[in-house]
């Protein structure tokens, strides 16, 4: 078929461009899964201890919302893989989205695809090549993980099922990104749209697993758990994923067949011939560049907030044992059960909000790389003011998305409990997450100022900090190491004790990092 001519060359090109990204991603994911499996085995040496631990997990709504349920009370493998399976599914979905958009719409937007497609390259080749890379990368990841899990003593069939579970999720979201990359003309918007759908899938699974199990089937992200590795190994769920991916990617191919190079589904409308009053300054420009993504993020956060507020009051009734209640009291300190759940949910939002902070700060780097910064800075605009503007937009945006989630969650929770005071408590619990996001934004600006080519390492910082929190206790890492993560210092509100010190300290760290970045930016050449 001539529409596929050149796929091989494009796959090789993609592998060449991703020669660092792919091996790193695969190694990190596989290592996280294998090390958790090894550590869990040591923690729960007897069958009875496994049953107790599974019961505690399944009775902890915050855990269930985050990671899903352990489907078999007696399965060590299922217990060990609970967290890696869920976080890994998210990670492979993000990787699939990033890869597909990076090799399709991003290339098209940059104009490189025009050059490529003028060669003996078929119309469907770029999308196909991107999908091939995703499939290949996940096959390698699956093989490495399955072998590793088997090596640390878990059953072989279940280990293969883990690989299948991740593969299924990656396949579906690669197809989803294939569609969003055809719908809109900007790579940033295509990624954003696909990630928003991923977020929705996460929300649906969280609600489904805590309150309405049938609902979880609507979320492709939940299919990873539905494969039930080490607890029945339901292989046919993989078939469901393949079928879904086939249908969705058929839609993507149909869109490719019906649109022009560079075009989207929606044609560009003419815009204003003159700039409004608001667009005559760098602040105005920063607002214009950040407002679209910010509004989308705020809407997503608000939607998640509605879900959280809706389920928070129910979770108390789902506890089945006194043991769990006791455990909860220990975990959440003096707070009520509901508060613990709210605090855990807001903690997740804090991490996601810092992702917003990172990508918004990276905007400065993108402006420089495309050459737009040089045009802007040839006007009487100081580069420190310019970069500080993007940082300010990022930091303010972190607060905005958190407040919108807090307000939504607080309002619904207040209605359900009949206590208007809940609004303020929940909003506060959301807002205190902001300084951790600022720290990430500050780190990104510091790296960007000093070594602009490494600016994207800010994403690495997010991953490392999250992993420190996830794996620190499991692997018995020293406290000072886990404490490097800003997320470790956020007060757990509502319910916990509020202390201004850690919040102020985080803000100070963010300020110092940002200041260093601006200083470095002032002293270096602009690309």
């Amino acid at each position, binding site marked *: 078929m001539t529409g596929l001519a050149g796929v091989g060359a494009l796959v090789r090109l993609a592998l060449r461009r991703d020669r660092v990204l792919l091996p790193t991603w695969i190694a990190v994911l596989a290592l996280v899964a294998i090390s958790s499996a090894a550590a869990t085995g040591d923690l729960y040496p007897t069958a009875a201890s496994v049953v107790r631990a599974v019961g505690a997990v399944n009775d902890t709504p915050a855990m269930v919302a985050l990671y899903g349920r352990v489907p078999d009370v007696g399965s060590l493998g299922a217990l060990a893989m609970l967290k890696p399976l869920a976080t890994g599914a998210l990670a492979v979905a993000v990787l699939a989205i990033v890869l597909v958009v990076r090799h399709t719409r991003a290339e098209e*937007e940059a104009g490189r695809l025009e050059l490529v497609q003028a060669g003996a390259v078929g119309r469907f080749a770029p999308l196909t090549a991107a999908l091939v890379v995703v499939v290949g990368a996940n096959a390698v990841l699956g093989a490495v993980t399955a072998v590793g899990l088997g090596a640390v003593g878990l059953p072989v069939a279940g280990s293969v099922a883990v690989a299948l579970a991740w593969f299924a999720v990656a396949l579906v979201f690669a197809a989803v990104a294939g569609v969003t990359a055809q719908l809109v*003309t*900007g790579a940033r918007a295509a990624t954003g749209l696909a990630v928003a759908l991923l977020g929705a899938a996460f929300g649906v699974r969280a609600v489904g697993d805590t309150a309405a199990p049938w609902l979880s089937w609507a979320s492709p992200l939940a299919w990873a758990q539905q494969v039930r590795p080490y607890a029945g190994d339901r292989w046919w769920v993989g078939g469901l994923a393949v079928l879904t991916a086939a249908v969705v990617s058929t839609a993507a191919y149909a869109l490719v067949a019906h649109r022009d190079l560079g075009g989207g589904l929606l044609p*560009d409308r*003419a*815009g*204003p*011939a*003159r*700039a409004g009053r608001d*667009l*005559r*300054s*760098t602040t*105005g*420009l920063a607002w*214009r*560049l950040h407002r*679209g993504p910010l509004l989308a993020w705020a809407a997503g956060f608000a939607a998640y907030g509605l879900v959280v507020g809706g389920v928070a009051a129910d979770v108390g009734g789902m506890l089945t044992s006194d043991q769990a209640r006791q455990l909860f009291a220990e975990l959440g300190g003096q707070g009520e059960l509901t508060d613990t759940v709210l605090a855990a949910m807001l903690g997740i939002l804090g991490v996601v909000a810092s992702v917003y902070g990172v990508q918004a700060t990276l905007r400065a780097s993108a402006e420089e790389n*495309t*050459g*737009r910064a*040089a*045009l*802007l*800075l*040839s*006007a*009487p*605009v*100081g*580069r420190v003011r310019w970069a500080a503007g993007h940082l300010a937009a990022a930091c303010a945006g972190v607060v905005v998305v958190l407040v919108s989630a807090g307000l939504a969650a607080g309002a619904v929770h207040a209605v359900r409990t009949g206590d208007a005071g809940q609004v303020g408590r929940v909003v506060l619990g959301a807002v205190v997450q902001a300084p951790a996001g600022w720290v990430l934004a500050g780190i990104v600006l510091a790296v960007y100022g000093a070594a602009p080519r490494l600016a994207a390492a800010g994403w690495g910082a997010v991953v490392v900090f999250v992993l420190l929190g996830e794996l620190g206790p499991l692997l018995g890492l020293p406290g000072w190491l886990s404490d490097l993560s800003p997320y470790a210092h956020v007060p757990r509100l509502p319910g916990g004790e509020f202390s201004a010190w850690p919040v102020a300290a985080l803000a100070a760290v963010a300020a110092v990092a940002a200041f260093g970045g601006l200083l470095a930016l002032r002293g270096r*050449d*602009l690309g």
Partner: protein
Amino acid sequence: MAITASGLCKAFGRTRALDGLDLSVRTGEVHGLLGPNGAGKSTALRVLLGLVRADSGAVDVLGADPWRDATALHRRLAYVPGEVTLWPSLTGGEVIDLLGGLRGGVAHDRVAAMVERFELDPTKRCRAYSSGNRRKVALVAALASDAELLVLDEPTAGLDPLMQAVFEQCVREARAAGRTVLLASHVLAEVERLCDRVSIVRSGRVVDSGSLTELRHLTTTSVRARLAAPADGLAALPGVHDLSTDGDQVRFRVDADALGRVLPALGERGVRDLVCQPPTLEELFLSHYGSRS
């Protein structure tokens, strides 16, 4: 002097982009910075704008140090980069107003007039513009401003011939209004038509600088003549190069300062027909780059 630079050096890793570049641009002139790709033209402009700091050397633009006083200096100049990238979601009109607004505002009728002369549709989103149209956006923003110095990097790349003519007219008007223009280009004909003075850049340094007349003085004139008598002995005259004969036709190049001594020698041999041609910019250029090929 609008711009003086001396001994500018700039290395990126092992590449020496600027290697002792000297440049002087007089106030009110159109100055051409001429050189092939990779000669260091764009780097030189970026140093003049204070976007990049020179490793060594001195530079003065409109009486200011571009690295230290970048913001204040930028109020008085306008720049069109070699590769124009704009914000995909903004319209061309919005970008022009944004850049103007940052300089403290531009009279809208001037913008409107420029938009019309360049036949630009300001309501289009920048992602929909061709590279030529993106360049027009940057050109309109620069030319409509009241900046005293225009720094233009390959300003006509991607423009069609009609638009190139409009651009040249605009540059002449800018000069008539007393503005200084520094124009980096490798389009020789354009530089020849527009520029009062030219600096030829090679491997990060200026190898020749001056008005076209001055540059020609330093080089050779090509001469073609038909002679009644044989051309014997002409080739031995000082300053004559590359002499060739074809029947009664003789062609050679002669150093500018030797022309006065060569003409009598031609007269002695009975000139029937004589064409003397000053070197084109292209020949000047090739004479500086000849060793490269």
